[in-house]
């Protein structure tokens, strides 16, 4: 008999799989594409930043690298617009990883606070480079080969490709959480020096985690480029992207598995909806900011953790267990030594 939790997952998976078939309005399926892209990015970001506690605010670097890889290769390899371009998506991921390794090596030598700022600095380096270097097309950006799948069904393949990325990122996160490597990341989060003192190879673990998390984000960027067909440096290297995925993950629950998925779902879908409904961009900024503040103040651990603790009454159970053990320990202390 399937556990209740697994039923939820199954239902959710079915809903996501059937979405573009049920909802055919391209306006909504476009929102769907962006939503799954962000869900994949948030999950992947959480895999490093959530587990290790090193908040990286420069993942747009990987997103943008993936996007430019897709664009540049499509153009220079004279690729036919269409499904063959999907092969470039993983390539985008690999390029992002290639950037992530040296960046991680430099950035992870410093304390957490400084780390955040370095990731921001690196981000601006990339953005400025994309704007100023010739081969990236400068501020006019790049145009990819025009895909002619037709209006009605245009979004569907992208949606499913994005869904594949979500599944991939989620499975990877699960694998990491179950592995020794994941445990080491969590230990680093709680007490890095202590972990080091206990023999954890902290530097190698951090750089590996950072690089791994870049892969999916790079792929997402490549998919995005293929989807929108035109990329500009200020959109693929967008500071809002960085903070958005951080926000989504915090909203959902930093360090949890479903947190980033839920957070991205809520935020990206509502953001897209709001920008379509309210053409006034400023109102959406205010709402976003206000929502964020409310979440941080009242549910600082994120929705998922808040709900889970409520449902399982975790705190009460823990207190009871601890007290029970205290009461029992005198016996153990005097007679339990082996």
């Amino acid at each position, binding site marked *: 008999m399937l556990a209740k939790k697994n039923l939820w997952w199954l239902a959710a998976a079915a809903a996501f799989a059937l979405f573009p078939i049920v909802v055919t309005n391209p306006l909504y399926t476009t929102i769907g594409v962006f939503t799954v892209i962000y869900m994949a990015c948030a999950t992947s970001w959480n895999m490093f930043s959530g587990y290790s506690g090193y908040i990286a605010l420069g993942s747009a670097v990987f997103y943008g690298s993936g996007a430019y890889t897709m664009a540049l290769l499509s153009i220079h390899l004279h690729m036919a617009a269409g499904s063959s371009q999907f092969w470039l998506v993983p390539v985008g991921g690999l390029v992002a990883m290639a950037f992530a390794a040296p960046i991680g090596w430099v950035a992870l030598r410093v304390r957490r606070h400084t780390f955040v700022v370095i990731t921001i600095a690196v981000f601006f380096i990339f953005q400025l480079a994309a704007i100023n270097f010739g081969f990236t097309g400068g501020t006019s950006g790049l145009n990819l080969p025009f895909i002619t799948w037709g209006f009605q069904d245009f979004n569907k393949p992208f949606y499913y490709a994005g869904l594949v990325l979500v599944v991939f990122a989620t499975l990877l996160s699960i694998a990491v959480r*179950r*592995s*020794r*490597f*994941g*445990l*080491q990341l*969590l*230990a680093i*989060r*709680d*007490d890095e*020096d*202590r*972990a*080091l*003192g*206990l*023999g*954890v*190879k902290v530097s*190698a*673990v951090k750089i*590996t985690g950072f690089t791994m998390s870049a892969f999916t984000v790079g792929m997402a960027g490549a998919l995005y480029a293929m989807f929108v067909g035109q990329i500009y440096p200020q959109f693929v290297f967008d500071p809002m992207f960085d903070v958005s995925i951080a926000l989504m993950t915090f909203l959902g629950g930093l*360090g949890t598995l479903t947190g980033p998925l839920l957070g991205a779902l809520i935020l990206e879908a509502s953001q897209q909806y709001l920008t379509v409904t309210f053409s006034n961009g400023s109102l959406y900024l205010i709402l976003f900011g206000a929502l964020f503040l409310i979440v941080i103040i009242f549910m600082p651990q994120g929705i998922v953790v808040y709900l889970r603790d409520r449902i399982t009454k975790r*705190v009460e159970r*823990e*207190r009871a*267990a*601890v007290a*029970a*053990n*205290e009461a*029992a*320990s*005198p016996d*153990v*202390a*005097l007679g*339990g*030594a*082996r």
Partner: protein
Amino acid sequence: MTTLLSATGVSKAFGGLQALSMCNLEVEKGSITGLIGPNGSGKTTLFNVITGYVKPDAGTVTFDGQNITNARPDAVFSLGVGRTFQLTRIFSRISVLENMLIATQHDESWLRGLLRSKSSKVEVDNAMELLDFVGIARLADLQAGALSYGQRKLLELAYVLVADPDVILLDEPAGGVNLTLINGIAEKIRTLNAAGKTFLIVEHNMEFVMSLCDHVTVMHQGSNLVTGTPAEVRANPLVLDAYLGGGDEDEDDLREAVAGA
């Protein structure tokens, strides 16, 4: 009796503060050695120097014949020196059992860690055994942050033991815990000692130290003052002076005594 761990002529200054000054310490193999002294005498700093968290300005640290003076904490740990901290340091957001599993990390390369699942049956069994030994096996699946202060101390003791170190440095193991637990901890130390483990214990609780340790070193103002059995140390007037403090004239006397001791 062989010396397992020793610090010779160790000095360390933090800015203008001379925390350690030509400090000597010897820990015999198989002993339970106590390290006492008034606040500020440099005990924890000495611990930090020995275990590699702080680099000394001068002096050497030797373990089992090997010079480990500037070794990094993980190197010191893998050689067989374990330690606990004054303010218990546990990984609060993972479970008690997972805390135990972290300590077995040092045996393999990180790459294998990537592919391995978090624990093998052997490791879990070993961890549970140790948790049972300290009496918190029932709490194995709880988030470590939920533990009471006393239970955290026990957890810290347990996971120091996971790697089966030869010498264990305990920084105020009896601090802030109730009497029953203190006795329990003392029992466990004796049991482990009987099984061959060497202990170096920093403590303020005099009864604890005097009843448990077979050898005691007193520190004062960054250097070692008196060394001997608990009875000898208790009888030594210099020790009393060190704890009660004294006027400037006394300070000179003490310094002479230290120089001569």
